[in-house]
């Protein structure tokens, strides 16, 4: 009849009290398990969503700052756009995995039809710049590397082609199919310059841009989301725009812009003078792919002092904060619930165990009078509590998890209805089609090893701490007073 057997026996012999304790632990365990489940699920969401959003950062004009400026300040501000050298300098920062910068222009074509999503669209005979000539500097195409699009045929650019502005292009598969084009074929876009100063448009210059197709791409996310996307309208518009994008080197874009400008200079002397006196600024949209989302803040901190005052660093992962409202409030709430329930558990379980022990003080005194070591009496009581606790905690492990998913379902539903509209982010060069719905979808309360481990550790530690008061009581027991 050693203390272990005694403990085990006592749990079954005092089955009523064991059940009361089990019930209390079970109830409290549910609250703790629920809170941990929600915590776990929310941190998972943050990770997966940020992974899906990616690690891109860009530099853009800080419109907030601009809005708050007085006219005086506006006059003094440095309007220099972000130059190639600055982009390269920032691209060299250790947080950056690789980077690209892009300038683009819109061209029309007499040679090919734009892809219009299978719809019949007639623009008449007038010139319609439906094709975005998107210049890039990163030969392997950042959009493909980051999963916006996927090369399905042919190849990407070579460094040579990028540097020398070779007349090669990558177009979408849909656009190619529309015009029965294949890798190796050439097609022509038209760069027309119009003058509107006379009140109606007058063509002043025009030239063809002949490009050889080296590769075909398909927008990736479209393929993935096909058929189930509820935001079809919005999505199509973006999709069609992307389907009509023509990837070329920045150099090609630059030449077309140059052509455009020179045409104007030829007809407008004032303009020509102004341009000649000033250095020509090319406008680039830079995009930096960081090593991980964790360095986004550090990157912003280091890049900020380097860029012109008017600009700011924009991390695509910041987007998470915009769409994660319901999750964030769940996380905060469950954090409080967790802390409060742990404290409450320590007190409640401690007092209940103490109450039961006071009932049993004669028994404990008997063990002591028989020469049992206090440590073993403590051990016996601890064992008894732990047997019940492990059962209670194991049960609440599952029910608490169920509870958590139920609670979060209702909470997030009401939450989204109230405040959070789908936030569509399509600014600058950062693309994210993730919405609050995506966040909620990726929020999943389920049993996993980390959750189980975490709950067991927290649960058992809570029980252990809660037995401190009762155990102090045992250590101070005086068998003479109890028994004689």
């Amino acid at each position, binding site marked *: *009849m050693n203390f272990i057997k005694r403990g085990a026996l006592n749990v079954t012999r005092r089955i009523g009290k064991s059940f009361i304790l089990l019930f209390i632990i079970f109830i409290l365990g549910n609250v703790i398990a629920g809170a941990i489940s929600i915590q776990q699920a929310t941190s998972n969401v943050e990770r997966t969503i940020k992974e899906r959003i990616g690690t891109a950062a860009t530099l853009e004009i800080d419109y907030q700052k601009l809005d708050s400026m007085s006219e005086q300040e506006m006059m003094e501000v440095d309007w220099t756009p972000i130059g190639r050298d600055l982009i390269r300098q920032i691209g060299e920062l250790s947080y950056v995995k690789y980077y690209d910068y892009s300038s683009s222009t819109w061209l029309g074509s007499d040679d090919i039809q734009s892809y219009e999503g299978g719809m019949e669209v007639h623009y008449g005979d007038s010139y319609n710049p439906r094709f975005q000539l998107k210049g890039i500097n990163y030969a392997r195409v950042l959009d493909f590397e980051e999963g916006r699009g996927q090369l399905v045929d042919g190849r990407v650019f070579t460094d040579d082609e990028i540097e020398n502005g070779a007349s090669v292009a990558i177009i979408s598969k849909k656009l190619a199919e529309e015009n029965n084009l294949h890798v190796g074929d050439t097609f022509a876009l038209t760069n027309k310059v119009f003058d509107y100063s006379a009140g109606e448009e007058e063509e002043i210059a025009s030239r063809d841009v002949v490009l050889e197709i080296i590769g075909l791409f398909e927008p990736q996310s479209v393929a993935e989301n096909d058929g189930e996307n509820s935001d079809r309208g919005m999505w199509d518009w973006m999709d069609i725009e992307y389907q009509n994008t023509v990837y070329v080197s920045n150099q090609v874009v630059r030449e077309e812009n140059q052509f455009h400008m020179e045409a104007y200079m030829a007809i407008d002397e004032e303009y020509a003078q102004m341009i000649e006196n000033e250095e020509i600024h090319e406008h680039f949209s830079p995009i930096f792919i960081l090593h991980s989302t964790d360095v986004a803040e550090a990157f912003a901190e280091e890049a900020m002092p380097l860029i012109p005052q008017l600009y700011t660093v924009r991390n695509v992962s910041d987007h998470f904060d915009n769409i994660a409202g319901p999750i964030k409030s769940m996380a905060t709430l469950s954090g409080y619930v967790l802390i409060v329930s742990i404290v409450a558990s320590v007190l409640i379980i401690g007092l209940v165990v103490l109450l039961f022990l006071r009932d049993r003080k004669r028994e404990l005194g008997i063990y002591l009078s028989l020469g049992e070591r206090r440590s073993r009496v403590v051990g016996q009581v601890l064992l008894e509590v732990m047997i019940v606790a492990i059962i209670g905690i194991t049960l609440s492990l599952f029910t608490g998890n169920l509870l958590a998913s139920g609670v979060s379902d209702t909470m997030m539903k009401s939450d989204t209805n109230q405040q959070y509209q789908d936030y569509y982010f399509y600014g600058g060069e950062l693309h994210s089609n993730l919405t609050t719905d995506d966040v909620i979808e990726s929020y999943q309360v389920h049993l996993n090893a980390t959750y189980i481990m975490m709950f067991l550790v927290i649960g058992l530690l809570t029980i252990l701490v809660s037995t401190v008061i009762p155990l102090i009581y045992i250590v101070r027991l005086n068998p003479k007073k109890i028994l004689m």
Partner: protein
Amino acid sequence: MILEAKNLNYYYQDGENRRYILRDTNASFEKGKFYTILGHSGSGKTTFMALLSALDEPHSGNVLFHGQDIKQIGYEKYRRNNVGIIFQSYNLVPSFTAVENVLVPMSITENEIPKDRKNVAYNLLDYIGIVKTKADRFVNKLSGGEQQRVAIARALATNVELILADEPTGNLDEEMEQEIIDIFTKLAHEHQKCVIVVTHSNEIAQQSDQIYTLKKGVLTKHE
């Protein structure tokens, strides 16, 4: 000498004053003898027993077991290996059966206990007068006399030579009292135990081999 009390002093602090319960108390006890300690209520008998059984500590003086100070042996260890204590109010574990109560000290003591403990416990109970059917009952389903027998069996379970009992028959009727006293006599005389029993009953005292009386903190040996 199996047990000796040497100049034991025990008092309660009463404000500024010390109220002595035991004053320079000396006594010695041998194996094979049945001792009684007589005294009025409040004379300090329980206090004395608590000191002998190491459930309390004297303010000065020593208790020697086979010549060794029990403080040196260690109070817990002394209780576990050297002494069997019997209380007026039985003090059995209510959630255990009689035989389970007897088994408890067997796993606490460091003394040699035969392997088949359960049998030993049943035999012990049987010897004391608890048949097997009663031995398997929860102790609160036994009469007071039966419970006290279980307590005696528990005291004997660790094979100790020294049995201390504080008014073991205080809650029992006379008939039951006599049966218990007979057990103590038998233990002393047939099993060479040293049995020390506190009582305020003269009748019991008369049956013992040696009477001590406790009065105003002084213990006197009767010839």
